[in-house]
């Protein structure tokens, strides 16, 4: 057991898996010598050599495209995109190839590869350093999209992702990279992809969220529980394939549903969740399934970002609204 923050859990998991499985290679911009701009890969080059952990040219399409080639040729690449806003030059590789190689080759070529990327706002950053693009990747068949919210899950989900025969988009809520620590077991364990986690059971309303907002929702829930509202909180963990069952079962129990995400509202993951709730628990609904999300704008620069960021207060406000409906 070690007390680790989310970044520490990432490094630890990568270290363990590189040790266990010689076919795992880790690379990206500044990932080798420096250990990544967030230091997620620190120490790995020293330990496993420049062949297994290395820096690349500034070239996202080549980073992802070469990872596809490596996965075909027997390796398990785990590549880092420095910020999720910079994944866009690699979108052709991800959507047109990574997602499809298996189907295209009728199962001949699996792509056991992971594309890691810090995402989300709240770090007072420049443009393109704050977006949440999970809905886009989740719309593409053939990809899996995972977002951990705790050090324990970070390790367990990353190990699942690396061992998964399909390509996994691993989105890391960078705002909480160093926000808190948790005991993470030394031993090998995995957290399954495709399974949401009931963080807290409750009976009045189901709140689903992920990433950095799980903690914010927890704070909000503390508030509203004082007022007698009993909330069931679900950490989605995998955005695609989505764990419909857990959500539907919860809403059947509570009759009320709120999804909270930082990505812009329209055509976001919240919409998918609301549709799932409609499809699976319609007759149990006592209030309209509701979303609390980012506005339909580009994440503002730091001097305006406070308007955009979803604070516990806002979540509490929305919970009350849905419960009172």
């Amino acid at each position, binding site marked *: 057991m070690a007390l680790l923050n989310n970044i520490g859990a990432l490094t630890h998991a990568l270290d363990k898996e590189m040790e266990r499985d010689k076919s795992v*290679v880790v690379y990206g911009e500044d990932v080798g010598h420096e250990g990544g701009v967030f230091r997620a890969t620190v120490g790995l080059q020293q330990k496993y050599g420049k*062949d*297994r952990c290395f820096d*690349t*040219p500034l*070239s996202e*399409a*080549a980073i*992802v*495209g*070469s*990872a*596809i*080639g*490596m*996965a*075909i*040729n*027997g*390796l398990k*690449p785990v590549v880092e995109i420095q910020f999720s806003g910079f994944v866009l*030059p690699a979108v*052709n*590789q991800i959507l*047109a*190839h990574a997602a499809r*190689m*298996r*189907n*295209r*080759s*009728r*199962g*001949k*070529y*699996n792509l056991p590869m992971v594309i890691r990327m810090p995402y989300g706002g709240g770090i007072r950053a420049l443009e393109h350093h704050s977006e949440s693009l999970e809905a886009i990747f989740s719309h593409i*068949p*053939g990809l*899996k999209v995972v977002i951990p919210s705790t050090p324990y899950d970070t390790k367990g989900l990353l190990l699942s992702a690396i061992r*998964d*025969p*399909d390509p996994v988009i691993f989105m890391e809520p960078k705002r909480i990279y160093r926000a808190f620590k948790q005991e993470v077991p030394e031993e090998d364990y995995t957290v399954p992809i*495709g399974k949401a986690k009931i963080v807290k059971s409750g009976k009045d309303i189901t709140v689903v969220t992920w990433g950095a907002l799980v903690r914010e929702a927890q704070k909000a829930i503390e508030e509203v529980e004082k007022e007698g509202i009993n909330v069931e909180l679900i950490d989605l963990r995998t955005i695609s*394939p*989505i764990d*419909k*069952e857990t959500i539907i079962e919860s809403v059947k129990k509570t009759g009320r549903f709120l999804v909270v995400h930082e990505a812009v509202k329209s055509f976001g993951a919240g919409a998918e969740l609301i549709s799932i709730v409609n499809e699976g628990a319609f007759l149990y609904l006592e209030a309209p399934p509701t979303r609390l999300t980012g506005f339909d704008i580009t994440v503002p620069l730091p001097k305006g970002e406070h308007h955009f960021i979803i604070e516990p207060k806002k979540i509490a406000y929305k919970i009350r609204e849905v419960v009172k409906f």
Partner: protein
Amino acid sequence: MLTEKFNPLKEEMLNILDYEGNIVDANLEPFIENDNLLKMYHTMVLAKVADIKALQYQRQGRMLTYAPNRGQEAAQVGSIAAIEKSDWLVPAFRELGAWLYKGVSLEQVYLYWYGNEIGSKFSEDVKMLPVSVPIASQLNHATGIAMASKIKGENDVAIAYVGDGGTSQGEFHEAVNFAAVFHAPVIFLIQNNQWAISVPRSMQTKSKTLAQKAIAYGIPGIQVDGNDVLAMYAATKEAVDRARRGEGPTIIEAVTYRLGPHTTSDDPTIYRDDSEVKEWEKKDPIERFKKYLIDKGLWSEEKDKALYEEYESYVGETFKKVEESGLVSLEDVFKYTYDEMTPNLIEQYEEYKKYLEEEGQ
């Protein structure tokens, strides 16, 4: 080294076999086993016959879209013959000759163009990727395959194909630059067939040759007569050897010509003169090679006639099989998106089956 002798900046093209099939410079003639020479020729003829017949089938409404490669057989077969079975082929979409030489069956190729994914599931020992439709994106896969080969300490190289049009894509640049930086054992084979659909080579880029783009990456590049199978073999072999020695990638520009339409949906008369096509027909890569083989005592007109006849019926039979193969099953449509079907997919699959049952289809 050929890449030094035919430095792209000198604007000299490597040519070994002239239009009449005579050796231009005996020093340059590559050594190729007779069996291999014949295999190369056979493959080129098969590619030609299969190509012509595919066009016919398509016009009869029996084949779907097809991208002919008539005229480019030497560029393809000459290059692919220079790699080993354990090496990788990363195709674009118009390299029938290379695929056949690499061991893909014509039936599979036809199945692919016939609109069936199963045509891209090559047998386990054929180290080739499926067709890549998004132009130039496959080059990064080749770079990755080659990097993996190096990382694993294996000795395999990759050869990747791209068109003249493809060199304008950002991914061309990224793949070659990446490969150069990591000394990845990969050969970037540009088939400059003068056209990208209706856009002529001169509109793609202002550089005089495509081979000279190698200079941007600090790697060797060479322009080769792409209708000369021996020149293609020699240039590729040198590049393959270099790659295997750990000296990194090479760009080869094969100067060739697409004699047919871009695909069966294309009407080339809109954008090019028939006289241009006629001019290139004189440079036919197969005729040249035949002459060389006959001169070498390896071939004869009689054998040739027999070969064409054999392939005519082989192609016909193959297509018949393909035509009889029918539709893709519902299960197969769902089964390959993920290693295991997701709950979502299972639900959609079941729901659709229910619909089909209820609606009596």
